[in-house]
Every structure is written in C-alpha cells, then in structure tokens.
C-alpha cells in the first residue's frame, strides 16, 4: 500500500494524501480545515482492503499524520502554545481530560438535538416572510409638507450663470503706460496717479502701477505719498533723462 497515494474525500479537500500535504506545507490549505480523523479512517479502510498488515505503510502513515496533527494543533491553539508548554505532565493531562470531557458533553448534546429533530419531524409551521410585516415604530418628529416642497423647489430652480469673465482677462503691454506717463510728464511737471487711472479696469490699473515702478527705477520720476493709501503724486525727476527715452521693455506677464 502506498501511503502517499491514499485517496481522500474530505469536506476541505479531495485527492491523494501527498497533494494534501503539499498544499498544507505551501500554506494553500489551512490545517485547521482538515478533519484528521477522516484521514485515519480512510487509511484504516485502505489497509483493511489489502487484507495484510503492511507495517512499512503503517509507520509512514503515522509519521505523516502526526506531523499534520502537530501543524493543525499549532494552527488551532497558536496563542495557547506557550501557556500549555509551561504545564507539567499532570497538569497537561488534566487539561486534556477537561477538554475531552467538554467535547464529549457537546457531542452528547448534539445527539440529543438530533433526537429532538427526529421527534419534531411531523411539526409543520409557517416559515419565511409573512404576508404582513410587523408595523415599524415611527420615531420621526411631525413633518411639514410645505417645508419639504420649498426645499425641493429650491433644488429644482435654475442655478445662476457662473461668470467666466476672468478667463478672458487680457493685460495691456506695460510700454503703453510708459509712453502715456512720459507724454503726460512732457506736458506737466507732476500729476495725480489715481486721477490718471480713472475709468480703467483693475487689470489696466495693475499694469499702470508696474509702469510707474519701472519709471521710478529708471530714475525718470519721483513719487510722493503722504501716508499709506493716500493719493500718489508723480513728478518729473530733477535732471531726469529727456522724456521719451527708451526704457527696458517688459510686460506684466514677465513681472
């Protein structure tokens, strides 16, 4: 009899014993799922069928099945391994006896349940959903339908048009304002910056301010402001280069 080829038909596995062991060792099958008693029964039946006592096969089977049992025990009682290892022989025997007793009681309780099931076999009653479900308790506070209608109406209203104007924002070139301020300073020795910007968009005002800073950097103008947020006065610089001199060309984007 070849132990490794022993055919098994268990809940968790169907096939030869060596495949079962391979799967367990590769951790593709949980040892805890394997009913070892069924394997022993399969072996005993196989042995009985040969009608001779094959001691080699028995020895090999014992080695394999005890290894499997050890793996299974470790899997089932991983957290208890240390605790049990500390027990003395007598204590371990006592613990084993206690567990076996417990299991024996449960087995007997299961047998009683089976008997009871057999005795109750002729009791028929309605199962599954009834034609009427129990009325659920309504625990919500009183509701006003008008409020719900108002909430729904506000959801159904057409949303306001979203402005996309900012996506079309265009910055005029800084040079446009450089030229403009130089022209003003050719006519007047000083001017009020805000007065000059009146009627311009915010983007144009920002570019105009950059132009102002550029003129100041080039030494063409002098700036005066009494305090923060007070009007800015722009004056032609003393000894400045003749208005109209070319400044460094740059744009708001490069700033």
């Amino acid at each position: 009899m070849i132990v490794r080829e022993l055919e098994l038909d268990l809940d968790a596995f169907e096939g030869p014993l060596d495949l079962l062991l391979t799967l367990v060792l590769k951790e593709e099958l949980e040892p805890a799922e394997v009913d070892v008693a069924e394997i022993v029964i399969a072996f005993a039946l196989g042995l009985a069928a040969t009608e001779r006592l094959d001691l080699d096969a028995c020895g090999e089977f014992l080695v394999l099945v005890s290894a499997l049992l050890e793996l299974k025990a470790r899997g089932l009682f991983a957290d208890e391994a240390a605790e049990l290892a500390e027990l003395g022989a007598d204590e371990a025997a006592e613990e084993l006896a206690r567990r076996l007793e417990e299991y024996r009681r449960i087995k007997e309780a299961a047998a009683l349940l089976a008997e009871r099931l057999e005795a109750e076999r002729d009791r028929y009653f309605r199962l599954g959903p009834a034609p009427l479900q129990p009325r659920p308790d309504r625990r919500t506070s009183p509701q006003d339908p008008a409020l719900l209608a108002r909430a729904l109406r506000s959801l159904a209203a057409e949303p306001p048009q979203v402005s996309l104007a900012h996506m079309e924002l265009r910055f005029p070139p800084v040079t446009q304002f450089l030229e403009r301020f130089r022209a003003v300073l050719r006519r007047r020795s000083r001017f009020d910056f805000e007065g000059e910007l009146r009627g311009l968009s915010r983007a144009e005002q920002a570019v105009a301010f950059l132009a102002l800073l550029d003129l100041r950097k080039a030494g063409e103008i002098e700036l005066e402001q009494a305090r923060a947020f007070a009007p800015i006065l722009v004056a032609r610089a003393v000894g400045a280069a003749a208005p109209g001199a070319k400044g460094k060309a740059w744009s708001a984007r490069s700033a």
Partner: protein
Amino acid sequence: MERTLRLISSNPLDRLARTLEALLVVASQPLDVAELAAAAQEDPERVETALRLVSDRFREGRSGIVLEQVAGGYAFRATREAAEACGRLFERPVERGLSQAALETLASIAYLGPCSRPELARVRGVAADSVVAGLLERGLIAEAGRNGDSGVAGGAVRYRTTPLFERVFGLGSLSELPRLDDLGGDAAELRSRLQAIAERRPA
C-alpha cells in the same frame, strides 16, 4: 327545552380570544404575551386567560391547527395528524441535511452561550468557518456582537441561537435543554482511560 345555537359568542373574553387568533394567524413568528396585549390593547393577564381558551380550541384531535408555546411566545402550527399531507406539499429546508458537525456546533452555541469561531474551533478541534456560514444561512444562528468588554470592532464575531432554532427543535426556550453537566457520561471513567494510556507510554 330547545336551545338556540349561538355560533359567535358575545362574551368579551371570547372576543379577545378571537382577536388573538387573528394576530397569531398574521404573525410570521411566535408572539409573546406582551406583544399580544399591546396589539389587542388588553391587560396581559386577560390575554393569558384568553390564550388558554384559544389553546383549548386549537389542539390535537380537535382542529387542523394547534396553538403551541414555543421560542418564548405563542404560534400556530399544523396538527401532527396532517404532517404527512404537509410533507407532500412542503419541504423542511431549515433542518434538511444538518450534518453531525452542524449539530455539534449548534449544541456548542446553545449551551455555551454566544461564542466566536475560534472558541467553536477550540471545542470541536476543527475550524468552524463553513459550518457557521451554513447555520447562518439557515437562520438557526445569528451574530451577537463581538468579543471584548464593550463590543468594540476588532474582537471576533460571536454567534447565538435564534428563535427559529427554538421553534425548529420545539423548545419553549433554551432553558428546556437538559443541563450540560448532566451530559457526557462518567468523567472519572474518561480520566482513568487517559491515565492508563499515559502509563503505557514509555517515559
């Protein structure tokens, strides 16, 4: 003297009994006295008295349906006399093919109280996952919180038996099961057998 046959009594207790019959017919599971009293808007004591009337009316040999006290409440079932005919019309899917493993798992949960899969594996020495899944599907057990002091997430899910379990096994409640301590035969005999095996083992 000739007496007029009165099919419907106007006695208030009789009227309550008829109301209870109606409630039990529409219920999908056993109803206890408190539920019946609330639905009938009656005193629980009067409900119990009326239930005795119903029980007398619906009993084996007198009616095709029987009032039984089961799973902590009252419910109608078919009379045993009609079991064969019922069997030709209906299956019993809940208890059909309950394996030995399933019965042992059910017994563990019924006797040991809510327990988790690892605890069940420890009792039977085999992983309980597939058996528990089968019992859940049949409705014989249900989840009953998790292991741990406050039932916080992370602990193993625990299972308990359901009212359907009590109904299928014809139990008024779990307390009708025999005591676990009275089962399992002679513990001393088991210990002496273990002792004998240990002594035969070479040191």
